[in-house]
Structures are given as C-alpha cells and as structure tokens.
C-alpha cells in the first residue's frame, strides 16, 4: 500500500508553480523524509495530500487510493502543521476536548496517559507550555486520533536539541506501539524538513525536492548502496568521469571527488579510492545538480551524467 501517491500533481499560485509534475508513491511502513530547500514545494505537497489545498493539475490519493481530502482519507491521517497551531488560551484538557469533538475517533485515555507521562499538566494553558511541550501536545492530539499516516510539516524547526530528540523518540515509539507483533496496523510517517542532518537517523525513505519538482525518491538504503564517492588524482578526473555516471564532482589542484552512481562491487581504477556516501552528502550532491535525478522506475530514471557536471574547469 502507498500512503501517498500522486500522478502529475501540480499546484499553481497565480502564475507561479509551487509544485509541478509531481509523481511519487510513498510506500507504507516507512518514515519518509521530504527534504529540500525552502520553496522546494514540500509544504505544498503535504497540503495537497492532506486535502488542505486543491491541486491545479493531476491528482493525489492517500492510504491506498483514498482521494485526498475525502472523509475516508481524513479519518486515517493526522497532520501536524508547521507552526503547531494551538489555541493559546485553551488548557491542554480543553485542547483534548476540542479535538475529541472535532474528530470521529479520539482515544481520550491514551492522550491523558501520554500527557501524564510527559509531565504536561492538563490544566496549563497551551500558550504557557514550553516549545517542546507544545510540540508534544500537538503530537499527542494527532496520535490520539489513531491515524494510519502521521504527517509532520517541519516538526522540529522551533525545538531545542533535547526537545527534538524527545519529539522524534515519541514519533518513533508511536510507530512501534501501533504495530504490535504483526506487520499490519503500524503508523507510517511522512515528515518534511530543510535540515537533512536531523532526519538521517530517522528516515528510511527519502524524497528530495527542489524547485517544485521531485529530484530523488527511494529507500535510503537503496540510494546509499547505489552511490559512492571516488577520490583520486584531479588530473585523471575528466578521463575517468567519462566512463562513469557522475552526479556531482568537486576538485582541487591535485585531488578530485566524484560522487557517482554505482555499487560497492564495481571496480575502481588504480589510484582511486571508493568510499560509501552518507545521506547528507548524497542529498547535497543532487541539490547542487538540479538536472540530475534518481527516481524509481526504468522509464523515469535518468542517468546522472546526462547533465555533464562541472568536472571540466
């Protein structure tokens, strides 16, 4: 099952396309990270998937084909928006009450227990809680709806390091709790961020966006296994690069680094060293080469070296 599936999806605000030709299929059971610079279209995609905005082109479904925004879709999705909107003058208890009455399903006991464990007083007004507590309250409201898909837009942007860690730990724990012994019933997570480093330990599916388009999509392990960094003499870089699928190249006077598509089993030319790449390194390489793409499906997977990166000086 795909938790979010779009085909030719686009959103235009006046004459500007915030998102265009977006075709993605995010499988269930993952923590999928939507990564890209500000203005890449992350929030637009999430708003379309949650039914908060209507597409200008194409379509999007969630949770195995439910049209975005339909009652069936909304029942299964919980969304925590970027600034964690909350009625500042309502107490935590009132926020639970409100959310319970606005939704068809709400696990009051779970919510109260969770807030108790976190040491968040039910009497305290939402606006008086710390940033970390507000985030945890918003997350609790979302999880108490027992969603199949949890969507978080820039969830950690305003949190300090400890609050970030605790927030992420809560999200990850929710994935385990929903699961039980079998594979079914777990919560899938889709979250966006422009800070990839904080997602590196969490995400196992990556969607890299830039300029309103999806540039890279796939399981993190597959992406990392199909790329590597070659380091060797700069003088040979041009000649060597011709035989490779280079995503991005950096070179100094003597030494060059080529981020290439290829597996660890591929042979390496004498004098060159191959290193595995990290997620951040991979993402940065693609973001610096907007023409390069790594997308699933033979019909759409373009070779990275089609763009001829700046190997030549």
């Amino acid at each position, binding site marked *: 099952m795909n938790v979010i599936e779009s085909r030719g999806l686009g959103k235009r605000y006046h004459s500007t396309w915030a998102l265009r030709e977006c075709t993605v299929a995010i499988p269930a059971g993952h923590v999928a990270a939507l990564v890209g610079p500000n203005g890449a279209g992350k929030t637009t995609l999430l708003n379309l998937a949650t039914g908060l905005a209507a597409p200008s082109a194409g379509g999007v479904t969630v949770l195995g084909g439910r049209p975005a925004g339909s009652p069936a879709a909304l029942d299964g999705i919980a969304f925590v928006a970027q600034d964690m909107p909350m009625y500042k003058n309502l107490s935590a208890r009132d926020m639970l009450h409100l959310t319970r009455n606005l939704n068809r399903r709400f696990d009051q006991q779970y919510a109260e227990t969770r807030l108790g464990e976190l040491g968040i007083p039910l009497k305290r007004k939402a606006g008086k809680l710390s940033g970390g507590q507000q985030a945890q309250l918003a997350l609790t409201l979302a999880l108490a709806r027992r969603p199949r898909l949890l969507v978080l837009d820039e969830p950690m942007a305003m949190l300090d390091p400890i609050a970030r*860690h605790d927030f992420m730990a809560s999200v990850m724990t929710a994935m385990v*709790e929903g*699961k039980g*012994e079998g594979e079914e019933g777990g919560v899938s997570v889709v979250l966006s961020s422009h800070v990839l480093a904080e997602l590196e*330990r*969490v995400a*196992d599916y990556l969607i890299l966006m830039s300029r309103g388009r999806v540039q890279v999509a796939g399981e993190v392990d597959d992406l990392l296994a199909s790329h590597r960094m070659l380091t060797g003499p700069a003088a040979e870089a041009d000649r060597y690069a011709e035989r490779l699928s280079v995503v991005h190249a950096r070179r100094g006077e003597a030494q060059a680094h080529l981020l290439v598509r290829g597996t660890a089993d591929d042979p390496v030319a004498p*004098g060159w060293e191959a290193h595995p790449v990290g997620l951040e390194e991979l993402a*940065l390489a693609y973001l610096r080469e907007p023409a390069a793409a790594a997308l699933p499906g033979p019909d759409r997977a373009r070779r990275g070296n089609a763009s001829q990166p700046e190997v030549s000086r």
Partner: protein
Amino acid sequence: MDIDKEVNNEPRRPAGASPIEFRLDPSSGVPTYLQLVHQVEHALRLGYLKPGDQLPKVRDVVAALAINPNTVLKGYKELETKGLAAGRPGQGTFVQAALSQVALPELGALRKSLLGWLADADTAGLDEDGVVALFTSVLRDFDKGRGGQAGRGVASGETEGVA
C-alpha cells in the same frame, strides 16, 4: 524528559531488560543498523553479553536513541542471519551463540607485533591520523583481496568537507 538519564545508571536489571545499552556515533559514517550489530558483537567479545541474554527491546532502543524502528529490526535481523541472535515471538530478541574469539595468547602476540609496527611508523614520522589513514586504507585493500596502492591513504588526511 528522562529518557537519556535512564541510559547511564543501571545497577539493577529488571526482568526483561538487557545487559547492554546502545549508543550512536553520528560522526562515524557507519550505518546505524551496523553500529548496533557491531556493539552487540563487541559486547559478546568482551563478555558483557552471553548466550541467553536479551537484547534491548526495539521500543526501548527507539525511545532512547530516537531512531527508526525499522533500523533496529534490520540490525537484529542481521544478527539473526549471522546466527548470533534469535527472535522469540512476543518476548524479544535473545543472544543465541557466543562469538568465536581469538585465543588470548595469539591476541597478545598480535598486539605485540602491532605495537612494534606502530613504533616503526612513529620513527618514520607518521602521526596518529596518518597511522589511522594508512591502516584503514590497507585494511580496505586487504578486504578486497588485492594489495597494491596501499600507501595512498596517507595523503588523504582530509576528510569529506561537505557541509
């Protein structure tokens, strides 16, 4: 929250708890699931873990380290594939076998010859980073089963500067 505090002080072990706790080194470049595998192997070698011991529960690892549960499951699956651990339905994952260890006398001899080599490297003017770079490079070549080009790693003391 007190998730991290619990990690550090654990004199008593309640039922169902594991003798070990995982930690992560984000700068190591080693994939998270492999770090978990290595730490279990390391704990087996050093005797912190014995056959029959329980590995940390997935939920506890996830809560303590804020990592994806699939990552923990992947690490545990790898340990099962290696025959070191086995899952028991409804209970968790348990250590299955001890790791074959190098006999202590041999270890002593290896250590001695390595010390001798380090002294040579020091005399030759190689600093610690140089030693690590050389060793890593040679080890990689050795793994590949071909020896040439071993000395190149020394020059690349610079690590990836992408930021």
